[in-house]
């Protein structure tokens, strides 16, 4: 297959204190709200539709339709899709990396996939992903597919197939300590033309 592929692996926590998706979220119940739902007990597939929201602690995913599955061990996985022309949204607070800093991550895509057991998310089509500190955007990436591993706080951006696939990333410089003054995020240029496989 002659695919153009662009891959970027970013470690948000590189060299710094390990940051985690809010630990307490794990023990929180999953709350779903929507206009209607069909729950298939035998197949363990639940189709929930109409202004869907899923919350679990500080995690919040919204969309138009959600397929929620429960594995025999009780872990869930969700596939949230947006209404036409709209985007599904994701937001989660992370354990504070340092005192006085509230870190949140936000993402949008046509489809958001969530795996509760692995604590991973996948943002598919028109995906955008942001990391904010006290409401200020520090990192921002966009691409066709973004995979986010909340357990290791790493994400991976895929430009997708075809020549139009492009990854754009803006990453704030890491502040080693409080000595470095707050600086605007350094723009990162898109990578050079990827090599053909």
């Amino acid at each position: 297959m002659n695919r153009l592929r662009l891959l970027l692996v970013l470690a948000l926590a590189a060299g710094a204190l390990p940051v985690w998706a809010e630990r307490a979220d794990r023990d929180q119940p999953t709350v779903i709200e929507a206009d209607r739902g069909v729950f298939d007990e035998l197949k363990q597939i639940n189709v929930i539709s109409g202004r869907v929201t899923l919350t679990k602690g500080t995690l919040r995913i919204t969309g138009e339709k959600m397929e929620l599955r429960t594995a025999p061990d009780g872990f869930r996985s969700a596939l949230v899709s947006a209404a036409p022309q709209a985007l599904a949204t994701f937001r989660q607070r992370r354990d504070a990396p340092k005192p006085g800093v509230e870190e949140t991550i936000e993402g949008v895509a046509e489809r958001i996939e969530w795996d509760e057991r692995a604590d991973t998310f996948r943002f598919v089509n028109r995906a955008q992903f942001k990391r904010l500190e006290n409401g200020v955007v520090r990192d921002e990436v966009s691409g066709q597919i973004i995979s986010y591993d909340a357990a290791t706080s790493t994400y991976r951006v895929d430009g997708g197939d075809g020549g139009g696939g492009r990854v754009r990333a803006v990453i704030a410089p890491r502040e080693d300590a409080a000595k470095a003054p707050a600086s605007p995020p350094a723009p990162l240029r898109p990578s050079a033309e990827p090599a053909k496989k």
Partner: protein
Amino acid sequence: MLDRLTMLIAALLLAAVTVTSYWYSREMRRPVVRTPPTPGAPDFIVERVSLTQFDDQGQANYRLLAEELSYFNENDDVELARPLLVSLRPGEPQLKASSKRARVMHAGEKVLMEGDVLLQREGRTGEPPLTVRTERMTVIPDLERFSSDVPVLIEQGASRLSGDTMEYDNLTRVLGIAGRLRGELAPARRAP
């Protein structure tokens, strides 16, 4: 003498006609003796009743217990006070349905339950029991279908689900909820 006898006969005839017509007019105005049952009143009432329904093979399908059963001949309906329906299908988790009152229509094809409706299903292996609470529920016993057009609350273990209306098929085990759906699902237990 003959004149007096003729007069007497004429007077007696007149009296007979008067009495007969009076009786006839009274009889016409009197209600019919065979009074039909008052519309809406039961033909008979049975207290503390237990009914069991069997399938073609003689296997008990479900049992119905009630404090009072009233039978209506006019439409073949049965009204129940404090009914409890228990499913007896072997190999299937037991299903119990109770309410303040219920109306069994079309010879048991349809049951309308009202007031404190509680549906309980025993847990399958490793599964907590499931309960459904609502104020009104329609049951099709043969198809094991339960539907509600008023708010419902469904609980299983620490998980709960609520909405404005419900449709549940116990054979396919598919539950549909519409209107203000809210679900609170207990977290999975992670290995420590």
